[in-house]
């Protein structure tokens, strides 16, 4: 039999309520328009002030072109991404199981939470001197810093997620005869997934910011190194701004991907 009370209004209302005074076709172009306006203002400002330090957009575009011709840019981007993902995945591998443990066993969380909360506000960059002593000028130093930067958001997201699984879900799981292991896999993990994804995105944002700073000290490649090297080597501020732009663009792209994943997982709720 068909249920007359079925309604699917969750999607419909959202669209109806979204207030937009701009025609739909324009929406896609809005970011391009702002970018164009900012580029124009930037150009005019550089010309008008006659600054020797801040490069014009055209100089920056030329710098990016030169860098990419020498394939230096791609190598640096590759190095940066390799480091950030290595540290980030290490943090996931350790952070998620640890977060599950802390979330599941209350006494464990009570024992370790003060420590976590104390270590959390310490900027990962504060570990830099130690990282350099431990790992020298090598990939391991920035990877370690990335790991430090991304581990807490992941641990905390997993811990709070597990802690806040509705008791009803657990009770139902137990009622159907699930062992603790099965309960973890079939109930707890899917229940916390959306929260963990949010934590992962947050962690990645921090990791990307920390990476650039880490590369200014501990290594001799990567986007962070590009910036500090361009300044030290010859006050090439066009290269500095080019590096900054690349960091921003790649950060945006990666965040867009993470957001997609986030919407995809939460859409099924």
């Amino acid at each position: 039999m068909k249920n007359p009370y079925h309604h699917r209004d969750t999607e419909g209302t959202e669209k109806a309520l979204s207030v937009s005074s701009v025609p739909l076709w324009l929406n896609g172009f809005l970011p391009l328009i702002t970018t164009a306006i900012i580029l124009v203002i930037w150009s005019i400002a550089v010309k008008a002030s006659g600054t020797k330090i801040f490069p014009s957009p055209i100089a920056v575009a030329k710098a990016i072109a030169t860098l990419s011709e020498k394939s230096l840019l791609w190598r640096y981007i590759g190095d940066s991404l390799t480091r950030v993902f290595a540290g980030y995945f290490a943090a996931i591998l350790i952070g998620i199981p640890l977060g599950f443990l802390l979330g599941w066993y209350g006494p464990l969380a009570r024992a370790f939470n003060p420590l976590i909360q104390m270590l959390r506000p310490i900027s990962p960059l504060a570990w830099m001197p130690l990282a350099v002593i431990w790992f020298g000028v090598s990939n391991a130093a920035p990877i370690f810093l990335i790991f430090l930067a991304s581990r807490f958001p992941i641990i905390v997201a997993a811990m709070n997620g597990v802690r806040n699984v509705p008791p009803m879900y657990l009770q139902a799981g137990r009622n159907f005869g699930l062992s603790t292991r099965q309960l973890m896999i079939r109930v707890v993990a899917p229940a916390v997934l959306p929260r963990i994804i949010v934590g992962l995105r947050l962690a990645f944002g921090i990791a990307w910011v920390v990476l650039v700073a880490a590369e200014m000290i501990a290594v001799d490649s990567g986007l962070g190194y590009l910036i500090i090297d361009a300044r030290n080597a010859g006050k090439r501020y066009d290269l500095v701004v080019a590096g900054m732009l690349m960091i921003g663009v790649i950060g945006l792209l990666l965040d867009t991907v993470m957001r997609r994943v986030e919407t995809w997982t939460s859409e099924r709720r």
Partner: protein
Amino acid sequence: MKVQFDDVSMRFGAMEVLQHITLDVKEGEFCCIVGPSGCGKSTLLNIAGGFLAPASGSVTIDSEPVTAPDRRRIFVFQERGVFPWLTVEGNIGFGLFDIDAAERRARVAQYVELVGLKGFEKSYPRELSGGMKQRVEVARALAVNPDVLFLDEPFGALDSITRLQMRSELLRIWRAEKKTVLFVTHDIEESVQLADRVVVMSARPGRIQRVVEIDVAHPRDLSSRRYIELRDLIFGEIGLAHQV
């Protein structure tokens, strides 16, 4: 006797919640437990389900003492108990993890049909109304073929029209499946519409104040003299409880 409560008492810290509950529920009986909120009726159901251990006394089902949750007796919550990450099918088949795929599919299809959710097998709970989610939960419970169902105010979050519909649905399913049902509610009308027997509990600490046999044949005429008489009797009982 299917379910036997033998002198069950419960306390949370210094607070006494249940006092000397002794009650027998027959096989296949539909038994409602009503009482003012906070009287411990949900606690009683959780004890029977094996989720809580009583402070004293015991619950036995088929003469076996209840010590832990068991798939032979399933607890049904308000519709918030369905798993949002599973489809209707996935939810209904949740407890059927140790039978082979073909049989699981058949069982799921059977219970989708029984609760009237055909065509919604692939839908996620967020796409369903409250009443439909409640059906999913009932089907999920029935699919593992339990012999006792514990329902804890299952229709409490539904609008009144859906609630009425769900009551007759539940009765239809109960007749088809012949389960023993313990149904906790604070809605007196609901209890008189559904139950073979209504157990009226006092305010906290909960004691059994009265057990009322509802000797009205199904489908029940809600304006018949006997129905109104029994309903008013229970209202009277609860009213007294409020005056204490």
